[in-house]
């Protein structure tokens, strides 16, 4: 089964309702609920930010800033739109502002400014992903896709219906003609199997498992 190119995946409605419930918890002072939202969306936000800022370290800084801004603005969030849609706008604006600020920033003076080639090389380096980051990203993509191909049919179908089609557990249960509890278990087992492969990637030298939080 080919899962690449499935960009038009529907964001699950049920997950949105779960997000709103988490937002309400944050609004009542539960910071752990915000942690969960960050853990859930940090990769998507980072990917979004990297459209504007290619340097991984700088992109992480901007993603962090976007989340903190979101936390501070959360009291005003009324749930008229999905949480991620709202977060998306904050992240885009933060990235754009950072881009404008970086263009205004003077060139670092630890370089020999007489050497024009050196200045240009530094600017290029700051604007591009590091080879290590590129390799890790590519490895993650390859590993996830290979792992999902290797799944038993029932597990693969369950997670595809969930992640790509955005169906609720109840709808998946109807589609697969099995109890909701079985759907829940299949989706978990699929994730666990893929995660096992993913952990090997991080343990294998491209990244450390403890780093990926």
């Amino acid at each position: 089964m080919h899962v690449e190119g499935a960009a038009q995946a529907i964001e699950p409605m049920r997950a949105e309702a779960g997000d709103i419930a988490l937002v309400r918890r944050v609004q009542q002072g539960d910071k752990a609920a915000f942690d969960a939202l960050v853990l859930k969306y940090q990769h998507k936000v980072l990917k979004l930010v990297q459209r504007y800022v290619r340097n991984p370290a700088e992109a992480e800084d901007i993603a962090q800033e976007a989340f903190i801004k979101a936390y501070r603005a959360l009291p005003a969030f009324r749930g008229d739109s999905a949480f991620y849609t709202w977060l998306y706008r904050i992240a885009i604006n933060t990235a754009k502002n950072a881009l404008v600020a970086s263009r205004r920033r003077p060139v670092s003076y630890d370089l020999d400014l007489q050497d024009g080639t050196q200045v240009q090389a530094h600017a290029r380096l700051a604007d591009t992903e590091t080879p290590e980051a590129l390799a890790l990203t590519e490895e993650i993509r390859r590993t996830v896709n290979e792992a999902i191909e290797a799944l038993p049919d029932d597990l693969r179908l369950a997670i595809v219906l969930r992640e790509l089609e955005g169906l609720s557990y109840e709808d998946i249960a109807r589609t697969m003609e099995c109890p909701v509890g079985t759907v829940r278990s299949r989706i978990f087992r699929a994730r666990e199997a893929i995660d096992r492969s993913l952990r090997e990637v991080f343990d294998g030298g491209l990244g450390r498992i403890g780093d990926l939080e």
Partner: protein
Amino acid sequence: MTDRIKEQLSTFLDGELPDQETALLLKRLERDDELRGALSRYSLIGAVLRSDGDVPAARQVAARVSAAIAREPFRAAAFVRLPDRDLLLRSVAGLAVAAGVAIGAVLIVPQVGPQDPAAPEALMAQAVESPIEPVSDVADVVDEPAAIYVTPPATDSTGGIAPAQLANYLVAHYGYASPLVRRSVGVGLMSAPGEPALVEVAPREGQAGK
């Protein structure tokens, strides 16, 4: 971390975990780094599956955000809906008018004091206290904006300053008063129920033009 907990985590990620279990899981997430790592990777898997391009793995974002927000104090008042800009402008305008009236009262009181020693305190208390109260409660400002406009009790014929006395004072010091004070006091005088406001007006010679 048991498979049961991880299955809960997977269900939570999909928004299918019941509220009670969610509350317990969030507590566990706070103190279990391994569980946080699993949540991050599960969401990364979903992001990679849904994306047509590469998804970068965020490494330090969650930990740094968590540390940053842990330092931020929770302020319950911050979660009250903020007043809109018009409301703020109205509040500021109301305060400015009230402050003007309070200054007017300060100017007026020493002149009328000897005739009624109790009046200045009452006048000051009303002029100074009234504008502060509504600001402490946003809802009150929304519902009752007029409460922050204070007019000196010039029309109170029983315990306050007699309108005629105030009128005398006003005419005598007209040149010193600001237009705002003149209008505030003037309105008070003219609105006295059943009492002719300017009956006893007798400007002192030589002062009216000052």
